[in-house]
C-alpha cells in the first residue's frame, strides 16, 4: 500500500482549474519530488494533501485511510508534516519553543492538567525539551535555541521549519521549495539535511525549482503542467522525456 495516494484530484479556483484529475502515489522510503513550471499546480497539490484547500473532486488517502474529509490538524496527527513556501514560523517564540511545538501530537495537551502542573505533564515537558534540543542539533541550530524566531535570518528559519516538522516524527514530510532563496552553500546544507532525514527513515516529498538539487536528491519525480501529470519516473526517465523538455522550454502547448 502506498503511504500517500491521491485519486482523481481536481481543484478549481474560480474559473481556473489548478489541478485536473490527478492520480499520484508515494511509496514509503525514497525521496520524491514534484516539479513543473510556475502555475503547474505543485503548491495546490501540497495544500490539498495537507487539507488547507478542499478538493473540487477526488480523494486523498494516507496509508490507505481516506482523509479527504479530515481537517488539517487531524491529518497532521496521522503523521503528515510540511514546510511552507513562504515560511510560517511562530515569530513570537524562541527557536527551541518552535521545535517543541512540533512535538504537539505526541504530548499530553490537556489544559487542566497543564494548569495543575500534573507530574505526567512536567515529565513530558522535560523529555520534550531534550528531544527538541537534539533536533536543533540535528539541523545544526544549537546556537539559536533561545533566539526569538522574529530575529533569525532566512537561512536559519528554513532549517528551523524543517526541525519543527521533524519533531512531529512524520511518516511523510512535505517540503515546499526548501532551497528557494538560499545561496549555494546553504543549498548544499539543505541537500545534506534532506538526505539525512530520508536516511533516518522519513519519506520526503519536495516541491522545488532548482533542477540540479532535484535531480541529485529525488529518486522519483512527478512532473506537473497546467494541473495535469506530464510525466513520472526516475530523474533519468524524466530528463529523457520530450514532453517535459517541451513544457520547460515553453512550447508545444497548442495541443
Amino acid at each position, binding site marked *: 500500500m502506498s503511504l500517500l495516494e491521491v485519486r482523481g484530484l481536481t481543484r478549481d479556483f474560480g474559473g481556473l482549474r489548478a489541478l485536473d484529475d490527478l492520480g499520484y502515489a508515494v511509496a514509503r522510503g525514497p525521496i520524491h519530488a514534484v516539479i513543473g513550471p510556475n502555475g503547474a499546480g505543485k503548491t495546490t497539490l501540497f495544500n490539498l494533501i*495537507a*487539507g*488547507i484547500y478542499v478538493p473540487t473532486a477526488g480523494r486523498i488517502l494516507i496509508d490507505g485511510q481516506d482523509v479527504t474529509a479530515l*481537517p*488539517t*490538524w*487531524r491529518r*497532521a*496527527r496521522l503523521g503528515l*508534516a*510540511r514546510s*511552507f513556501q513562504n515560511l*510560517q*514560523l*511562530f*515569530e*513570537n*517564540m524562541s527557536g527551541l*519553543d518552535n521545535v*517543541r*511545538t*512540533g*512535538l*504537539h*501530537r505526541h*504530548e*499530553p*495537551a*490537556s*489544559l487542566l*492538567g*497543564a*494548569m*495543575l*502542573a500534573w507530574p505526567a*505533564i512536567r515529565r*513530558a*515537558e522535560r523529555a*520534550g525539551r531534550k528531544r527538541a534540543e537534539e533536533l536543533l542539533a540535528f539541523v545544526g541550530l544549537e546556537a539559536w535555541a533561545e533566539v526569538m*524566531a522574529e530575529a533569525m535570518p532566512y537561512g536559519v528559519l528554513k532549517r528551523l521549519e524543517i526541525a*519543527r*516538522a521533524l519533531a*512531529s516524527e512524520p511518516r511523510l514530510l512535505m517540503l515546499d521549495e526548501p532551497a528557494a532563496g538560499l545561496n549555494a552553500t546553504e543549498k548544499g546544507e539543505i541537500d545534506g539535511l534532506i538526505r539525512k532525514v530520508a536516511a533516518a527513515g522519513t519519506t520526503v516529498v519536495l516541491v522545488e525549482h532548482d533542477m540540479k538539487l532535484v535531480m541529485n536528491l529525488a529518486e522519483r519525480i512527478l512532473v506537473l503542467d497546467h494541473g495535469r501529470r506530464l510525466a513520472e519516473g526516475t530523474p533519468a526517465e524524466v530528463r529523457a522525456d520530450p514532453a517535459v523538455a517541451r513544457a520547460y522550454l515553453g512550447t508545444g502547448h497548442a495541443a
Partner: protein
Amino acid sequence: MASRHRGLVLLAAVVLALPWFLANKFHFQVAILIGLNALVCVGLNLLIGYAGQISLGHAAFFGLGAYVPALLVDKLRWDSSLALAAGLAAVGLLAFAVARPILRLKGHYLAMATLGLGIIVAIVINRELDLTGGPDGMSVRAYRIGDLRLRGEWTWYWITGGTLVLGVWLAQNLIDSPAGRALRALHGSEVAAESLGIDVAGFKVKAFVISALYAGLAGAMTAHFLQFVTPIEAGFLRSIEFVTMVVLGGMASTLGVVVGAAILTLLPQLLTGFHDYEHLVLGAILMGMMIFLPKGLVPSLAALWTRWRAQS
C-alpha cells in the same frame, strides 16, 4: 522555568508585605480592587496576549459572574458556594456556546463580535429591572460558609491575594506546557499550528472559556466584597478597561498585566482631586503609553533594563 517561579514568588511577597503599607480601610479597598481586576487580566491575557485573540466583551462575563450568584442567593435563597458554582457554570457555558462561531473571526471582526456580545449582556442586565434592579444596581448578600460571613477589608484582602497568586500560578503553569505552546503557536501562525496537529479552533475555545471563568470568578468576588453591583460592571467601558490593563502592563507577560491592573485601578483614585479632568487625563495617558510603549510597560522596561545591563 526559574524565571516563572521568580515572578510568582515576587507577587506572593508583595501580597504578604503590602498590608504593612496600607494605612486605612480605603487603601485596603483599593488594593482588593486591584487584585480582583488583576485576576480578570491574568485570564484575559491568556486569550489576548498568548493566543492573540482580542475580546472587547469580557465585562459581560465579569458582570454575569457578579449577578448570577447574587440573584440565586437573593431570590432563591441558595447557599453562597452553590450559587457561585452555578454562576461560574453559567459563565463557562455562555462562553463555550459563543466561542466557536465568534472565534472563527479575526482582527476587527472579532473585536466587533465580542463587543456586541458584551453590550447585549449589559443591556439585558440594565433592562430586566424586576430582576436586577436595572441601572441603580442591586445589593449583594455577604458570602456565607455555614454561619461564617465573609466580610470586611481584612478578610477580603487575603481571599483576593490568595486567589490572585493561585490564578497566576495556574496561568503560568499553562503557558509553560504543551497546551500553552499550542496557544502561542496559533497566535504566531494558525496554518502552521494546524499543520503540526494543533486543533486551532478547539484551543481558541478553551482559551476563551478559561479567560471567561477568570473574569466570572473575579466578578463574583467583587460583588460579594462590595456587597453591591451595578450594570456598569458589565458594560462596554469596563471591557475596554480590562483590555487596556492587559495591553498597558504588557501582553504575554503575566506580571505585566498585574502591574497594568494596578496602574489603571489607582489612576482614577489619584485623579479624584481633579475630578473634572479625570477623563481628559486618563485618555491622554492611555494614548501616550500606547504610542510610546506599544509593547506595554513591563516588557518595555525589561528590555531597557537588559540593554542597560549589556552596556555596563
